Each structure stands twice: as structure tokens, then as C-alpha cells.
């Protein structure tokens, strides 16, 4: 079976209660991390652009910016969200229902790639941005394909969602399981294994990350030994994956999809994983 190899070079994640890498390590070990609260840090974005971001956009870019190169270096990105700016869309639909004119700002920012657009303007980076609504496996597969097609040594994946607006709550429950109970955003900086040794400024020590292979497999049965370590059905796949990444003893992970499942295997695990001990 064909598979794709990827290196997770870095990551950052945010929920309303968990922010720092240290807190996430505690969370992965099953400990109760010290709660923090606060708003996502988006001070890297100029105020005139910052005002364009919803709570969803602020959260997504707060995890993206720490992983982005500071300099003029270009970096393609994949933005992945199941529901995207649904709050804005609901607001627009309610305006339409009242036969009132739509806000041009909310309209332009309701599209799925709007958050990536704000980021590109803030960074003045014309690199490609893809916005999709897919599961974790298809997001990473897309990222791998873009790295290959553009001969890019790295790509940033940003995965984020908020609880669906209450007007859709019943629908979301009947069709695809509930949306996330809590807002979350997580970014993964990916590198391809065949480009890890390039010496064009992006060159990274291939040891400094988690190397994994991703392949498609049959959906697991309920008694499969490779069920995800945390099987809370409302846990976003990206967080289940992060837990797997931060748990050195777990070498394989299967994440279910609609028609098949995604099978992850750790092939090498470097500094990040050992630092987690």
C-alpha cells in the first residue's frame, strides 16, 4: 500500500483553557494542566488587519504565527476547518432573512480562505494558501501534495474550529456527530522526508521532529487494537493526533474517516519527543 512520509517539525495549539507547550505536555500525559485563560495572542498582526479577524481567525492565527519564519521567507499554508466562519455566515443569513443589505466586510470575510488571506496580507507573503474542510488525514495529504508539487521543503497546516452556532446544533448532531465542544486551533509545521537535507536556508536537522508515515487503510472495527488512545468522539482528530505525537510509547494511530481510515506510524522520533519525557 502506498504511503506518504512526513516530518512534524513543530506545532502550537490553543484552546480557551490550554495554551503553552508545557500545558499540552501535561494534557497528553493525562494530567490536569493548570488552567489558563485569556485571549489568543495576535500582536504580530497590525491593528488595522487584526480588527478583521473573528474569534475563530484570531485563534487560528495565534497558533500559526509562532511557527512562521520571521524573515521574508515564504511558506505555503493549508487552512483546514470543518465549519469555518459559520458564525459570520449565520449572521449574514439572518440579515438576508430580514431583507436588509449585507455587510460587505462580513461577506468578504465569511469565505473559507479569508483567515489565510488576512495572514498573507499581514506577512506580505504571496505563497500559496489552500483552505479546505477535511479531516486530519486529508489535510496532511493535501499538504504533502503541495510540498511535492511546489518543491517546497516545508508547509504549515492550521486546523481550527468552534462549536457550531446553536441554530445548527441539532443538525450537526444527527449528521456527522457533534462539532467540537470547545474552540480549538492547532498548527503543524510539516517537512517532507526527501527534502529535509536541502541546504537552501530551510535545511533542518531531520532529527529535530517526529517522522511519520501516513497511509490509507480499512476502517477499523470496534475491537481493533489500534483504536485511538483517547476515544472521546467529540475530541477533534487534530487533538487526538497531538496526544499521539506527545506520547512516546504509542507508535501507531488510526483515525477513522468517512470511507476509510488514516493509519499513522511513527518511523523516527527526535528531539521534540525526547524533550517531552
Amino acid at each position, binding site marked *: 500500500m502506498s504511503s506518504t512520509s512526513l516530518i512534524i517539525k513543530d506545532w502550537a495549539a490553543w484552546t480557551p483553557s490550554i495554551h503553552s507547550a508545557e500545558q499540552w505536555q501535561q494534557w497528553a500525559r493525562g494530567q490536569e494542566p493548570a488552567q489558563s485563560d485569556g485571549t489568543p495572542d495576535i500582536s504580530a498582526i497590525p*491593528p*488595522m488587519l487584526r*480588527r478583521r479577524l473573528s474569534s475563530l481567525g484570531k485563534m487560528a492565527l495565534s497558533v500559526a504565527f509562532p511557527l512562521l519564519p520571521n524573515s521574508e521567507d515564504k511558506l505555503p499554508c493549508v487552512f483546514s476547518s470543518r465549519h469555518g466562519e459559520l458564525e459570520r455566515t449565520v449572521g449574514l443569513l439572518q440579515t438576508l432573512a430580514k431583507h436588509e*443589505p449585507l*455587510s*460587505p*466586510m462580513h461577506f*468578504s470575510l465569511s469565505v473559507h480562505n479569508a483567515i489565510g488571506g488576512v495572514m498573507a496580507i499581514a506577512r506580505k507573503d504571496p505563497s500559496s494558501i489552500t483552505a479546505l474542510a477535511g479531516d486530519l488525514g486529508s489535510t496532511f495529504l493535501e499538504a504533502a501534495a503541495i510540498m511535492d508539487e511546489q518543491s517546497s521543503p516545508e508547509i504549515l497546516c492550521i486546523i481550527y474550529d468552534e462549536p457550531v452556532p446553536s441554530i445548527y446544533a441539532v443538525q450537526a448532531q444527527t449528521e456527522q456527530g457533534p462539532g467540537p465542544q470547545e474552540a480549538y486551533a492547532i498548527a503543524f509545521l510539516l517537512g517532507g522526508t526527501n527534502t529535509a537535507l536541502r541546504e537552501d536556508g530551510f535545511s533542518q536537522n531531520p532529527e529535530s521532529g517526529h517522522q511519520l508515515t501516513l497511509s490509507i487503510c480499512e476502517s477499523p472495527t470496534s475491537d481493533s487494537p489500534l483504536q485511538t488512545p483517547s476515544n472521546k468522539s467529540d475530541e477533534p482528530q487534530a487533538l487526538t493526533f497531538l496526544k499521539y505525537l506527545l506520547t512516546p510509547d504509542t507508535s501507531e494511530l488510526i483515525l477513522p474517516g468517512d470511507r476509510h481510515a488514516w493509519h499513522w506510524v511513527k518511523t523516527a522520533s527526535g528531539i521534540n519527543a525526547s524533550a517531552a519525557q
Partner: protein
Amino acid sequence: MNELERELKQLIIDTLELEDISVADIDSHEALFVEGLGLDSIDALELGLALQKRYGTKGDAESEKIKEHFACVHNLALFVSSHQNGDR
């Protein structure tokens, strides 16, 4: 600063979510777009809609005159008051 100009500045701040800016920060004769306050084309559309809702103004977005009307708060006040006078 006349009352209408003050009102328009507050409308601009509220409509365009200029969180860190107060009425006193906006000069009536300073450019609103690109330079000066630094608003962009989406702001222009949003502001046009807000003016239409509040004052019933109608402007042709394609016309050269509208650029003049939207150049600064002072011009906007003239535009709004001429519309109000013409209406009533």
C-alpha cells in the same frame, strides 16, 4: 468640529471596528483611505452601506465624485448634508 462631522467620526469608528481610535484622533480634513486613517476598499463599501442606512445617501460607486465625497470626514459631512437638504 461641527456636530455632523463628530457624528460621522463616531459612525466610522463603530462601523469599521476601529478599536484603538477615538473621535479626537480623526482629523476632519485628513485622508480616510490608504493614507491618513488607512482605510481600504472593504471599509469604503461598509461605510457606504452605513451612510445609506443612517442617512439614506446613495452614491454611485463607479463615479469619480464619490471618491471626492469619501476623501475625508469634512467632505463626507458636506455630502450627507447636501443629501439631507435635497431630500427635505
